């Protein structure tokens, strides 16, 4: 896997490509991204993700001149000489993922779509296996009640174009750097690249059969993107789907909780950075549940959410006693699971 996976990040200038990259991979806060200038040509970054996976992120500058340069090989053919053809070869060759940003406030929607089509055309030619993700970005600038409608409208249109004219199936997300929607989108993107994702899922489910947690979530360490998750109903009642679904519905948890956790923990990491350190674990006995967040392997964090049933034990020192024992049990379980997950990571 040493060659790495190539991700193209494209979109017209000012649509927020570099801001997005800085927040997810360089620990910027949303506020800090105002300092970023325009990207010239292509900015490469190599990111190690989960030990055995390298992401080559190509952040492509979005000004028309750069865009034309990327695309010119296709449109003007031999007339432009070898340089144009080369660069288009270069950019679109062996690409695994395209992430295309649309600025929701853009005035020239038609032009955006045209450019998108040309990008698709090139990809069709040079790397037909590519996965395509569309992010409708800067959603925070739209009134809350209009967001869904607008997103559906744009996404369906783009989907139809990609499907009919180029035969690509695309996925879309509405995003904004000011809330957790960014993490959801990137989680799905990155998860689609992890080769042994099913192994992680399998092991997590196994772990949960032992721990009987309300939910277990696995995060990547530096980006805090969600890799995998399991909950009580999906692991223990797998054979009884219908019942599981109903139970899950009764549990009625916030569907956006994963992204929110990513967001909360990242903010926390930044604030801890102010006293020049990093956090290593967190144990919370809250009103609603007990949450254990700990390092799992050198590249992952695990979060275990247990039911908070201490109320049964009543008040006084006994209640505290039970809590302590539960805590030790969970931490011990995590310690044992650590070896197992290290093994998955070492696998090629």
């Amino acid at each position, binding site marked *: 896997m040493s060659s790495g996976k190539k991700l193209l990040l494209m979109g017209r200038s000012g649509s927020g490509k570099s801001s997005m990259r800085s927040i997810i991979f360089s620990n910027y806060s949303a506020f800090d991204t105002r300092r970023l200038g325009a990207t010239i040509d292509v900015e490469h970054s190599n990111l190690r993700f989960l030990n055995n996976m390298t992401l080559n992120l190509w952040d492509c500058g979005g000004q028309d001149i750069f865009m034309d340069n990327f695309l010119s090989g296709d449109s003007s053919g031999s007339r432009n000489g070898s340089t144009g053809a080369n660069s288009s070869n270069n950019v679109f060759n062996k690409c695994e993922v395209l992430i295309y940003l649309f600025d929701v406030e853009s005035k020239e929607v038609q032009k955006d779509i045209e450019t998108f089509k040309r990008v698709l055309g090139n990809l069709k030619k040079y790397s037909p296996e590519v996965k395509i993700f569309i992010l409708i970005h800067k959603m925070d600038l739209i009134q809350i009640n209009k967001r869904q409608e607008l997103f559906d409208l744009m996404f369906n249109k783009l989907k139809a174009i990609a499907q009919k004219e180029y035969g690509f199936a695309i996925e879309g997300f509405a995003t904004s750097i000011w809330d957790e929607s960014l993490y959801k989108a990137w989680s799905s993107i990155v998860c689609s690249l992890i080769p042994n994702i099913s192994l992680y899922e399998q092991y997590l489910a196994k772990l949960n059969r032992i721990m009987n947690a*309300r*939910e277990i979530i696995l995060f990547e360490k530096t980006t805090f993107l969600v890799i995998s998750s399991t909950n009580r109903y999906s692991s223990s009642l797998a054979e009884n789907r219908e019942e599981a679904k109903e139970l899950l519905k*009764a*549990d*009625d*948890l*916030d569907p956006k*909780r994963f992204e*929110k*956790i990513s967001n*909360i*923990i990242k*903010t*926390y990491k930044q*604030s*801890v950075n*102010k*006293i*020049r*350190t*990093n*956090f*290593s*674990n*967190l*144990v*919370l*006995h*809250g*009103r*609603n*549940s007990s*949450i254990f967040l700990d390092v799992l392997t050198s590249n992952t964090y695990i979060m275990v*959410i247990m039911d*908070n049933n*201490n*109320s049964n034990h*009543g*008040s*006084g020192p006994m*209640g*505290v006693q039970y809590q*302590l024992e539960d805590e030790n049990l969970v931490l011990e379980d995590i310690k044992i699971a650590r070896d197992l997950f290290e093994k998955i990571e070492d696998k090629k």
Partner: protein
Amino acid sequence: MDSIIDAPGVQNPVTILLMGLRRSGKSSICKVVFHNVQPLDTLYLESTTKPTTENFKSLIDLAVVELPGQLNMFEPSLYDSKKLFSSIGALVYVIDSQDEYLSALQNLAVIIKYAVSVNPKIHIEVLIHKVDGLSEDYRLDTQRDIMQRVGDDLLDYGLEGVQISFYLTSIFDHSIYEAFSRIVQKLIYELPALENMLDLLMQYSNFDKVFLFDVNSKIYVATDSSPVDIQTYEVCAEFIDVTIDLDGLYEPPRKIDGPDSVALGARNSSVQSSSQFTSPNSIVPETKNSELDPIYVAKPTRCISKLQNGTTLYLYQMIRGLALVGVSRLEEGDEATSITVIDHNVNIFKKSLEKMWEKSRVK
């Protein structure tokens, strides 16, 4: 309009009066500190036309009365200024440091003269506000200039003995919380006892720093006697947010059908009290009932986080929407024991806090 101001004042001497010229940023301060509004959103606030009162219940029942800036405050038809001033504990005057502040200083001197004549025990606090727009050197110059001028003005009025505290504040960082913390602390009668207790707790539990926070506003009502490092404060304040936000994501289901219904009663009441603890926007409507709720007492929220340099952040829920947040450096390998000791000590602290609060209510 009289009644708005009178109501908290009569039964509650702990009232803060927020004054200042128009557009000095009074409403923004209120919104940011007490309602968790994002600082940038306060750009769109309307100008305040009526005196508004914020009731804010924490260790003490606090009321913040905000006066519209454009009023001539000695206009007797609007409100009874004598009654108002005699009922408040602290006068907070906001000066816009980015604007020409000479007229504000004149206004301030007149107000101080009047306030002291009505109520000599009043605390006078001056916020030199909006310093985020000034460079580092210029801030201190501005502060020195303002202090000098206020001193001169008071000398002219023959009031040189009046104590005035100055704070450099901005809503875009934590300085406004720091300033309000100090202002509120001056109004807490039990503060010396509290600080003493926190000092003891710190000594015996190996804490580097302990704060007693109000969870909703992130104001600390007390801390130990070691100096406050603003960065530690910020981390502790954010730690509260992390705790509340994470816990809030896993609220138990509201309705449970089937065999679990025995636990329903217990669950439900815990939901209610949890919403009091979690909802950041509403100010805790604490009643006597919820404090005596056994679940509320039995299961305080507790959160521990270790950092890579060996520091441990510790949070423990206290009474009345307060939380104790401590920073500690634990010895390697000895953590389990130390945390047990801390838990025990903090529990004792909580009990004394409960007792103290009962006593203060009887009085």
